[in-house]
């Protein structure tokens, strides 16, 4: 056998770790939980569709107007996917990128190889992105075909918006995953911190006028969602009037890109310098 002395570089090493991790991630208990989570919106959509077919008058109304399938899809996309599923996935997968290997005590095999530790994090991050996208994107497409036909407009009218929604989901998964990968690499109770950020801090600051909302991921994702959100209450209308105009799509993409790259870099730095002591 020939001795190998050439040291692999960051990206090829990350791709090797990606290969090694994707299968493990796809068949993990966490992915089963994700599949169940994604079943929720689909079940809800199926019920709405059934109700619309059985009794069109049963459809919800906003400001006296019966909402159509595309509007309903837009609301479900924003409230269930962007504001709930994507942050949940970011928290549970992102914080566990390295922690899972540490808990399983398999990290030794990766860290004993002549690759930068950052490559392990990066490879597992890519695997997370592929795994979650593979599960979430088909679910959204299914949701679209269940909900969009409700009402007068046809399925085709919403396809461009659907494409934009799919891209938004990937961008959201990338940003939240990177952010929580950093949280996972830095703090002791990353899941708690992640959940507080996603479901305490973000909805909290988004409600109020001011610039704190720029310190959230959701604020930039909001600008990417192509659907106009109907206001369901007078208070909501007043709040919307007080809010400054959302950032442009280009500015939002740039901000989300910056969040992703910066937090991934910080996470990689933390993993490089941190010592992982395995429990006996």
């Amino acid at each position, binding site marked *: *056998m020939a001795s190998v*002395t050439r040291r692999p570089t960051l990206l090829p090493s990350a791709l090797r770790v990606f290969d090694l991790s994707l299968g493990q991630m796809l068949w993990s208990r966490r992915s089963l939980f994700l599949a169940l989570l994604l079943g929720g919106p689909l079940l809800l959509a199926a019920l709405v569709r059934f109700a619309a077919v059985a009794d069109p008058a049963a459809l919800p109304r906003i400001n006296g107007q019966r909402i159509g399938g595309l509007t309903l899809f837009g609301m479900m996309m924003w409230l269930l996917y962007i504001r709930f599923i994507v942050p949940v996935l970011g928290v549970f997968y992102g914080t566990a990128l390295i922690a899972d290997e540490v808990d399983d*005590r398999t990290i*030794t095999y990766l860290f004993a190889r002549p690759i930068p530790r950052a490559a392990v994090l990066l490879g597992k991050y890519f695997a997370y992105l592929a795994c979650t996208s593979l599960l979430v994107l088909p679910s959204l497409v299914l949701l679209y075909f269940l909900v969009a036909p409700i009402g007068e407009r046809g399925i085709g009218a919403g396809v461009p918006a659907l494409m934009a929604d799919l891209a938004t989901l990937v961008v959201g998964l990338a940003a939240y995953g990177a952010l929580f990968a950093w949280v996972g690499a830095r703090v002791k109770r990353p899941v708690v911190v992640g959940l507080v950020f996603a479901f305490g801090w973000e909805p909290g600051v988004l409600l109020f006028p001011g610039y704190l909302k720029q310190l959230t991921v959701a604020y930039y994702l909001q600008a990417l969602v192509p659907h106009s959100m109907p206001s369901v209450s007078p208070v909501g209308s007043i709040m919307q009037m007080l809010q400054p105009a959302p950032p442009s799509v280009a500015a939002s993409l740039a901000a989300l890109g910056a969040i992703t790259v910066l937090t991934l870099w910080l996470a990689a730095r933390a993993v490089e310098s941190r*010592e992982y002591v*395995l429990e006996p």
Partner: protein
Amino acid sequence: MIIAADHLSKWYGQVIGLNDVTLAVPPGITGLLGPNGAGKSTLMKLITGQLRPSQGSITVFGEPIWRNPASYARIGFCPEQDAFYERMTGVEWVAALVGLNGVDEEAARAMAMRALDLVDLAGEARKKIGAYSKGMRQRVKLAQALAHDPELLILDEPLAGMDPVARRRTIRLIREWGRAGRTVLVSSHILHEIESMTSNVLLIHQGRILAEGNVHQIRDLIDEHPHTVYIRADETRALARAFLAEDGVLSLKFEDQALVVQTARPDAFYTRLTAMAASGELGTIHEVTSPDDNLQAVFQYLVK
């Protein structure tokens, strides 16, 4: 020297893992002998760059090892923990890890198959690791350590849980590596295992190196203490009957599907046990382990 530690200490919070250790490991095979919790695994993790020294320094091939992954290509590490990617087959797992050394996919698979063949696991290479027995899991772990043909092998309790035949074969393999000019640091809490591989031993206890070099005197001390062996086998009663006739067997006890034997002559006992396992005359012997109570007693005596 291949490995050199200078006043090396490692603490886990308030717990001392390794305490002011200065040592030099030459080429060839060196045994690291000590009871559980002595600091063997901590030392091995420091040598492989898994842990950062709290104090002092450690160099491997003349270079500091912590955060120096370029050196890791020259090291093969077989850790103690029984942890794997259970859904992968043996060859997939070993090839994937060898691939991280910068080897292309095809070459990595060929190297993995060669390594699995060396540890006598080629026939089971395409089975999922989750379906492997304890001994097979030890061997696949060994295969990933040696597949990239490293100059330095760090083996943490590599024989734990192996059946006598695999144990004998692995010991022979380790001795061959030593003869081929490689450096091997192998840990165990069983002197007889270490002694069958090398006479160059580091004695470690409570985080300190007690002695290094040839340890025949220690061996004499250990022989004065009864040695306990736990054997998991299909035919424990037949084994017990056979051992009753052996000199030096002090007691026999049945535990679930295992036989626990206490012997005053461990060398003769292991030779007989290996012969029985190889012949299969008394059924299959699945696993042989030895608790470290006897070694612990000797170390307590030494440090008094």
